[in-house]
């Protein structure tokens, strides 16, 4: 099974603008993308980014061992969005370098803790996390029927111009 992720150029621009803002004490910002999903037979499904939900300044915890640590209120608000709007939730943060990004050990440990919590409110949907660099993107998707998260294999930035991240044949 393969997973594709699509986001409009306009929405990605707002995400980047928000994540680049400085925070009173956290070294970086994080947020959530609410998404919808569509089946693409025969190969898998496509996640469609719908809206960005930044984590509020007050919902970060002071933890200098990591770039940003969300407090329980941040996760609670994201869970509420998933419940009220019937949407998938994808955590999003940025690494300040160029080239293909990937999750740090801490990112992987923390996302593995809170992403499956979204199944408590939306058990029939996929959820996940994406990490942005200055010019690229990567992500993991948790499917309710899969034992482990699946790496998102294709990204499309939809706008003028289009941008694809996929295996080029």
């Amino acid at each position, binding site marked *: *099974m393969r997973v*594709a992720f*699509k*986001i*409009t*150029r*306009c*929405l990605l621009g707002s995400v980047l603008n928000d994540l680049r803002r400085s925070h009173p004490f956290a070294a970086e910002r994080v947020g959530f993308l609410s*998404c*919808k*999903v*569509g*089946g*693409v*037979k025969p*190969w*898998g*499904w*496509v996640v*469609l*980014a*719908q*809206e960005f939900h930044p984590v509020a300044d007050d919902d970060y915890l002071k933890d200098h061992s990591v770039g940003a640590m969300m407090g329980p209120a941040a996760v609670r608000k994201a869970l509420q969005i998933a419940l009220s709007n019937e949407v998938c939730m994808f955590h999003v943060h940025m690494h300040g370098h160029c080239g293909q990004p990937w999750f740090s050990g801490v990112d992987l440990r923390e996302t593995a803790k809170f992403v499956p919590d979204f199944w408590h409110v939306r058990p*029939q*949907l*996929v959820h996940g996390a994406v990490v942005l660099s200055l010019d690229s993107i990567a992500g993991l998707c948790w*499917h*309710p*029927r899969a034992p482990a998260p699946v790496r998102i294999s294709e990204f*499309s930035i*939809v*706008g*003028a*111009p*289009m941008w*694809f991240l*996929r*295996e*080029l*044949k």
Partner: protein
Amino acid sequence: MKERYKRQSFLGPESDKIFGSCIAGLVGLGGGGSHLAQQLAHLGLGNFRLLDPDVVEESNLNRLVGATPEDAAKNSLKCDVTKRLINKINPRTRVEAVAKKWQESHQLLRGCDVIFGCVDTYRDRYELEITARRYLIPYIDIGMDVHSIGDEFSVSGQVILSMPGALCMRCLGFLRDELLAKEAEDYGAAGDRPQVIWANGVLASTAVGVFTQLLTPWHAGHSPTVYLEYDGNLGTVKSSSRLEHMKAKKCRHFSGLKDLGDPFWAPDES
């Protein structure tokens, strides 16, 4: 870069790979769609999804690129003729061809990067645009018309790029309620519409240019919405004045990005 694409290398060092990995849906394989298929195959597009339920008839031979009198005699499927045309140009191209109405096989379109609509009715255009927006797929529409004015005729047409999140074909005034209503009223009484190969060719070529600029831009004039009007009598293609009036406005017909994805997606179906 492969030798066959060297003359288009100004589109970028990776352009052959970008086109090679791209998936385009072509809905309608008549005068416009067959031209598009031919040009996209030459350009190096790697993956086609073709949808058209119709067969080739004698009256198609004035404009259906790739069709032969034998196809008309045998009533070959248009999607088979187009697939044959594409594979002759580039045998490595992957082509999925379905001889059904697109509404019966719309799942095939969901995985496309771009959808081209070369359909006859406003209703089809309206529904195709909704489908494309639901899966965040740019939609490129082409169409031509011949009107009689007294003893003369006027040949015209349009190429529209409808980008998810940007102005739609209703915003641009191309799709209007009265046109959809009139079409529904006249359903079945339209008869054969006049179609000519040179106008189809101009429109298809223009659409391929819009598509190429979208994937491998060769100049900085990126625009999320394109509305080009063809005047076949003057031989001109110009940006529509309607687009100029609407440029600063937002689409009010599609509720932002709210209506995305499958309305009833279930994890077991994927």
